[in-house]
């Protein structure tokens, strides 16, 4: 019984922290990070990191709920949720013990690649029935944003002490 109550509290904490974190980054962090119309996808960075560190289940769940929050902003429910769920799930398969020493380089590349994967799904649905080209959207927005997200991930990893990074990914 005690375990169940503790789990419920954990879930509430998780939801609260997610909501608060999203609110803070959307209102206070993103405006400072934008370069023209290019923006890093902070939710995606976190989703990929969680999927990479804690496995497919955590990555999928985090991706789904953080995507849902973004869906509220763009008023297109399910679009970010779907693409982020798949990105979070895929992130778990990129974890490997062979990259432990080069994780600061490897993880940003994974973030950039999964950002492209994520945006591929996102724009794939977004351009349906509207006069936009998927290829143009990918070249104009997805590619620069993916590179930018990768750079942000690299900078974050440089700030985190190495001893905190040096542990095994969950799926290994």
């Amino acid at each position, binding site marked *: 019984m005690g375990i169940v109550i503790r789990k419920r509290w954990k879930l509430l904490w998780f939801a609260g922290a997610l909501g608060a974190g999203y609110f803070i980054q959307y209102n206070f962090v993103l405006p400072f990070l934008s370069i023209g119309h290019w923006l890093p996808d902070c939710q995606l960075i976190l989703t990929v990191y969680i999927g990479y560190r804690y*496995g*497919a*289940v955590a990555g*999928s*769940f985090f*991706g*789904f709920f953080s*995507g*849902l929050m973004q*869906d509220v902003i763009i008023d*297109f*429910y*399910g*679009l970010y*949720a*779907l693409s982020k*769920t*798949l990105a979070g*799930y895929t992130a*778990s398969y990129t974890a490997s013990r062979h990259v432990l020493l080069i994780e600061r380089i490897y993880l940003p590349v994974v973030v950039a690649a999964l950002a492209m994967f994520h945006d591929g799904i996102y724009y794939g*649905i*977004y*351009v*349906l*029935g*509207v006069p936009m080209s998927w290829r143009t959207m990918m070249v104009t927005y997805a590619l620069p944003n993916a590179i930018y997200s990768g750079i942000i991930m690299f900078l974050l990893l440089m700030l985190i002490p190495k001893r905190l990074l040096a542990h095994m990914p969950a799926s290994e």
Partner: protein
Amino acid sequence: MLWQLKKYAVGFMEILHIYRQYIILLSLVVASIFLLQTNANPQLTYIRRHLLFMTAVVSRFQVWLPEYESAASVKNLKERNIELFKRNTVLEEAYLENIRLRKLIQFRDRFPLRTVPAHVLNKIPNPRLSVLILDAGYNKNVRMHDNVITDRGLAGKIIEVHENHSICELITDEMFRAAAKIQRTRLDGILRWEGRPNEMGFYGVIKNLDVRIGDVILTSEYSEYFLPNIPVGVVYEINNEVPGLFKDIRLKTFSDLNTIEEVFIVADTSRSVAARSGFEEQFLRNLK
């Protein structure tokens, strides 16, 4: 028994545990798609439209599947289908006739001269003798040289009358000639057919006179057999580059003489009524 059920439940839970990440992924993807369905964006409209199309394609494949209906019921359905098709054709025909006749009745009610309605019994499309056989004759007081009109304008004149039927010479007959005038300038000329369906020539207008494309041609007071001011057609081509004194003017007839089925024979020959101003408007308002 209970023990076995418990064993199954444990086994099931174990399977769920092993495949939990796939099950969770599938559930989240399904939840996302369900959320996508709640939107009313053009993207979703596009997806729904294509899904409908795919459903139609798949249902077409179903036609290839063996039919489990009995032969008797298939035969019965086919017969019923033919019967309904026949009935539908009759109703469609009646509907179109209804619309056409309503227009003609409206025209007849407001037309100032007495007219005899007539159905076309037969058409003779010979260019040397372009005539209609009508189902009205002496029995309905039809006389020689009575004008034949439609709700849009002149169609021809009666050239032969019998007890129950009469023969109408169309304006697109090779021998047809009639005095006519241009509505705008009152310039006179002669109408004659020049060999094309629903087209006529207007002959006798000198080259330096004012004729424009779009001018309406009416029958003239000079005409021996036709009442004045019945519209005939509209000018669509004027050519001055022809030898001789006169312009080469072509007009399209207002009445479609290829599809004509009902006409009015003008039984009243009062020229004073036809000569009144605004008489041609009875026809021209039907063209709008």
